[in-house]
Each structure stands twice: as C-alpha cells, then as structure tokens.
C-alpha cells in the first residue's frame, strides 16, 4: 500500500493526499501552493527565472502557475543571472514584489553583486527612502552526483550580510509558511530550498492549509524535545538529526532537535534556552566548516549566558572541507551521515 502511494506521488499527479485522516504534502507542492496563494492575493507579486513558466519549473516547483497566471506574472528568462536578478531588484525598487528563482543557488554567484549591493544594502544606504521587497529562492546545497560546481551551500555567505534575511525551511509546512512570509516581507529574503527535499511528503496541520498561514521569519522550532544534548540544524539535516535521535533514544540518550528555520536572523534565544537545559550542543549542517552556520552558533553561545551551562565544548558536524566530488562513495563521505551525527553526539557527551 505504501509502495503504491509512493508510486502515485512520484508520478507528480497528486499534490496532496489524505491518509488515515491526515493530510500529506510534498515540499515542492507546498512551495507551489505558497506561490499560488500569494500570486492570487497580491497582483504585484510575480515570478521570474529560468524555465519557471512553460517548462513548469526546472524542479517542477512552479508547475501549473504559468497556465493559471500567464506571461505577465510568470516570466521565463534567458540564462543571464546577473541581468535578470538586476531586473528583478529594479522591479522591486519600482513597486513590484518579484520572486526571483535561481535554478540553483550556485548560479546566484553570478548575480551575487545584485543581491548584496543592489538589494541588501539599499534600504540602509538610502536611510529608509528605498525598500526592496524581493525573494530570491531556489535549491541550495548538495544534490546527488552533480559535482563540485553544483553542490555548494550558500547559507553562510548570504547570512553574513546585514540587510538580508536568510531562510532555510525543512518540512512542507516550513516551506509553505516561510515562503508566504518571505513574499509578504518588505525586505530582500534569500530562501534556501533543498532539491533532495522537494519530493519528500510531510504531514500538513489543519492550520497550515489556510491561505493565510504564515510562519514568522526569525523563529526556530523545537522538533523534538530532549534532555541530554541540543542539536541545532537546518534544512535536510533536520531529518538526519531526527533519525539519529531515534537511534540514540534506544540507548537512553534523549536529543533535543532544533529546526533553525531561519539562518538570519538566528534565533539564538531558542538555542540558548535549550543548551541551558541540556548542557551540550552539537550543530549539524551540510555546508563547509570554515566560517559556517555552526561556527556562528558556537560563537554566539560562547558570548551569551548559555556558555556557563555547557559541560563540554560545542561540536560542529559539517560537510567535509573540500569541493564536492562526483563518485558516489566519495560524495557520500563528503557530507554528514547519520552515523557521523551519532558519533559526534557521543563524543560530546563523552559516552
């Protein structure tokens, strides 16, 4: 039964389905629904990017939107990131609310000047005269077998920049609620999705099915309560941490898993409160170790009240400090696996 449901889902014909009275939705469809609802709600909202219209989206996230809204609101662009990102930012300055899709965030590097210098800094430089209500979204981080130039995680780079908000959803509910918040936000928001999560179904709460459902940017969520160690993580690694927590629970170790949801502004309070309870901290991410999200969390914990509650130095679990290799065995060993997380937790707990 489960296999046939999975088959049904993979065919892409079903957006959400009910099983035993619960509503399930895949991340890509949650993103689709979020955009659809916001396009309907505010006619200034429009989507542009490569293949977003007639191709239904490179990863099918914008499926059906062009058919519904047409050329004016769903725009296919040529393969010119710097150009179309600049155009999107200009449109935002002049009163529209664009959603600028990068096919992957790796390509955003070509346009990073427009994101940082034209979008992020403008409200400050103009002392509040000029706002830039724009969302930059797309898949971020490693995929599967796509090699070094297509696997970089940009969370740390964008999150270091004042004037930007950086959001990294995990579940379908996260995706929907946070994307709607990002679109309604009057500021530039970098919305980091994950390609490997697009096809993963999640339960959708009753509340999340409303057209006005939003999740506030800047607030983390405790996905699993625990007492022995705090795991601070984002995006796909929330799944890994929950899996690791399930394994460790059998050994009597209770992990508290925090889904960061937003990287900038970081919900330090949530992490601090948790650390003050568990006395141990492990951060888990897919990005590179140096100057990364985990590094920032550790620094902040050290500077704050939670430091005195740590029974051991905080540990960072990260991607390996190399460009992403191609061969499967190498790729698998370039990113944190559940066993790496379990190992790190045990080391931190000294068990």
């Amino acid at each position, binding site marked *: 039964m489960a296999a046939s449901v999975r088959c049904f889902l993979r065919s892409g014909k079903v957006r959400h389905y009910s099983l035993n009275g619960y509503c399930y939705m895949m991340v890509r469809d949650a993103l689709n629904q979020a955009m659809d609802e916001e396009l309907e709600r505010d006619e200034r909202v*429009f989507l542009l990017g490569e293949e977003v219209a007639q191709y239904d989206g490179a990863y099918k996230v914008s499926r059906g939107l062009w058919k519904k809204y047409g050329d*004016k609101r769903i*725009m296919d*662009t*040529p393969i*010119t990131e*710097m*150009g*179309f*990102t*600049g*155009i*999107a*930012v*200009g*449109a*935002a*300055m*002049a*009163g*529209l609310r664009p959603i600028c899709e990068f096919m992957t965030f790796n390509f955003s590097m070509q346009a990073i*000047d*427009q994101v940082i*210098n*034209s979008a992020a800094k403008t*409200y*400050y*430089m*103009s*002392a*509040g*005269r*000029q*706002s830039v*209500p724009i969302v930059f979204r797309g898949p971020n981080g490693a995929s599967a077998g796509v090699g070094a130039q297509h696997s970089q995680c940009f969370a740390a780079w964008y999150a270091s920049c*004042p*004037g930007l*908000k950086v959001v990294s959803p995990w579940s379908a509910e996260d995706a929907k609620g946070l994307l709607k918040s990002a679109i309604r936000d*009057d*500021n530039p928001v970098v919305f980091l999705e994950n390609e490997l999560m697009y096809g993963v179904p999640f339960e959708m709460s009753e509340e999340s099915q409303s057209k006005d459902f939003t999740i506030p940017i800047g607030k983390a969520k405790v996905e699993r309560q625990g007492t022995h160690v705090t795991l601070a993580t984002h995006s796909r690694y929330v799944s890994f941490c929950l899996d690791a927590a399930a394994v460790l629970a059998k050994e009597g170790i209770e992990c508290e898993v925090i889904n960061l949801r937003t990287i900038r*502004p970081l919900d330090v309070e949530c992490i601090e409160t948790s650390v003050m309870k568990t006395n141990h901290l492990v951060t888990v991410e897919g990005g590179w170790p140096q100057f990364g999200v985990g590094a920032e969390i550790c620094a902040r914990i050290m*500077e*704050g009240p939670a430091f005195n509650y740590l029974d051991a130095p905080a540990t960072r679990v990260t991607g390996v400090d190399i460009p992403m290799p191609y061969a499967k065995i190498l790729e698998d060993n370039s990113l944190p696996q559940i066993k790496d997380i379990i190992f790190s937790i045990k080391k931190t707990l000294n068990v």
Partner: protein
Amino acid sequence: MKNMLTTISNALCRITGRNVGAQTVSELLIDLSEYVNVTSLATPTLAQTLRQPPKPPPVGPRAPAAAQLVSAQTDRLDGPGTSVVVSRSFADFTSQATFDIKKCDVHRLEEAPPLKAELTRDQGLQYYRVMQTVRRMELKADQLYKQKIIRGFCHLYDGQEACAVGIEAAINPSDHLITAYRAHGYTYTRGIAVKEILAELTGRKGGVAKGKGGSMHMYAPHFYGGNGIVGAQVPLGAGIALACQYQGNNQVCVSLYGDGAANQGQLFEAFNMAALWKLPCVFVCENNKYGMGTSVERASASTDYYKRGDYIPGIRVDGMDVLCVREATRFAADHCRSGKGPIIMELQTYRYHGHSMSDPGVSYRTRDEIQEVRSKSDPITMLKERMLSNNMASVEEFKEIDVAIRKEVEEAAQFATSDPEPPLEELCNHLFSNDLPLEVRGTNPWVQLKSVS
C-alpha cells in the same frame, strides 16, 4: 555732460534700433526710464520683469548719471530682495526662438530627432539656472573636498550639465531615472535641494540619505541613485522599466551608464531582455571619453556606443548642447512610450574634473584638451550665448541669476558644514523596512544596539 548724454543716446539707439536725434536732457531721461526694470531675487525659477510706467525725471541743471537714476527709482520699490536692473523691458525680449541643432547619427532607425529646437525665454532661463546651479554645486563640492570636509569618493559632474538638464527637460517627473556614481547633478534635477546634496556629501543628518549614503547613494522619488558598482544600475533600470510596463502607467525609465561601463556583460544581458520584452527603457551612455584613466580607444573594441545595442536602435547625440539632448531624449522617450521597446542614446560629453577628486585628471589627457572643450563647447556658455545673440535675455539677467545661485550654493554649503552629524542612535536604523525593532551586535558581545525601521 553733453558727451555723457550722447553716449546714453547712442546706447539707446543701439538698443531700440531707432534714430534718436539730439534731445533735451529731460526727453532723454524719460526714454531711459522706460528701460528701468524690477527683478525679484526671491523668485526661484526665472527672472520676472515688470514694466514700469515712465516717470518724469528729476529736473535739474545736471543730468544724473545712469546709476544715480537707477538709485532714484529704488525708493519706489517695495518688497524684500528686489533690485533694479538697467536693462531692456520684458516686452523687448524675444520670447521664443528656433535653433539649429546638430544632426544625430542613428542606428537601426528610419527617423531621427529633429534638426531644429524651439526654445522659449522661460525655458532658456530655466535650463541656464539649473545647469549653473549644478556647475556651482559641483565646484563647491570640489572646494569642500579640498578642505577635507567631504571625504571618500566624490565624482564631479561639471562639464556634463547639458545631459542631466536636457534629459530632465524631456521627461516627466513621473518617469524614472537611474544612474551610476556621478550622480549629484541628477539628484538635483530629480528634485533634491542643493543643501541636502551637500549635507549628504559632508555626512550630516540633514543630508538626503541622513548621512548614511554618501556621494554615490542619494535617492529621490523616481530616482534610484547613485549606484557604486559599475554597470549594476543598468539591469536595475531595465527592471524599473519592467515595472512601468507591468503597471501599464505609460512611464519610461532612463537608465544611464558611462563609456567605461558600456563594456560590462550585464549591460548586454539587460539589453537582451529589454529588447525581448519590449521594455520602455531609454539606455543612455554618457560618453565622456574616459573611463577613469582609460580613454575609449584603449577600452572598447568599438567606440560607437550607440550601436553597441546591436538589435536595439540607437542615436548619437551632442551631449554638450542642452537642446540637442532634450530633443533626442524626447524622441527616445516617445519611441519607448509607443511600445517599440528600448532605445540607446549615446551622449557625447566631457567632464572637466578627473574621474573623482583623487584623480587630477591630467595624467591621461592634456590640459589643452580640457581648456579647448571649456572654451569651445561649454554647455552653459553655449546656451547663454545663444540666448544673448537672439535677444532672449540680457547679460544683467544672467548675472542676476548667477548671483542668486552663488548665494544659494553658499548657503547650502553653510548648512552642510554646520549641520550636526547623524546621532549614534541612528547607527543601526534602516536595516529593514516595516519590521519590528531588533537588536544588532556591536563591535563586542556586550554592545547590543537598537535598530528600528
């Protein structure tokens, strides 16, 4: 005395073009009084002139000198800031004239901007006033920079005034404009007062961006700066044009860049999308012959910047002639508004200063070259001479305007040097629009600063 009367009488002949025979002192003085004008310095736009009815001259053995006659009239005048100028009366000026302007080279266009431009007296004085204000403002900035009251970057626009003024004359305030870092002139033409511009340069709280932006980051309604990254403003401009098209408001965006930026890849990306989607964008290349210290010949394989848009039509315009710029911009804006898509306008112009205040501007070009442009093609002088030789205004009137502008700029500089710097409480404000107040980390963990929208 008789000589003096003869001189006056001959002058009258020249002015009025009639044969004034020998007259009595009284008659001569009656005539002279007809040419007494009242100009009010308080009028911000142009010199207003009032026709005074002839007044019987004071009768006496000696004819007062013209100056004394003038002062005798002064006590009739009331109102602050008025002064009396001996000049011809308003009715004697030509109210409108048509001028021949240089032909524009065109690329992929069947038509070209007109070869003649009409100029009314009012318009002429207005353009003169605005160009002169920009000129004096930039020179004042030069002065303040040398006194180290302005710091950092300062890219001056003197020499290029006809571009900013000509463009503004041809578009509406509801149209949009975006430019690069040589932006002070456009900040003024788009509506920001001189004092707010200078105060921004000196980094004071009365500056247009409250001192937080500086020279390259000044904004106004429908003016999107002031952009520091070479070429980045061009796709932004195309995006603004997209918003105009999207909203169906018949507005256009003028997106400016220099000869240096003309080789940037993102320009061609913007051109492609603008042409593809027929965006109402006028791309303007201000070709002042040098990209920083590199001449156009050393930077571009093709210096025909108006043709660089390839499939986008282009016009090459004499950027030192405000009328030429105006006519070409009108032509270009009409092209866009009629739904034909983008157009490129290359304005051939010249900057007197170096690239910025750090650049003396003479290591890559000769002083002779600068001097030659100043003497032969200065935009302000050209306009003034045109108006004078066509009886559209008097030398005195221009002097009046100059004096008024000098005063305005001086007062603005006063403000810019005396206004306080922004308070430290403002340091972290304006990070986000419409957001709840947040805390921002200071230089050390114990400093948490407040930020409001």
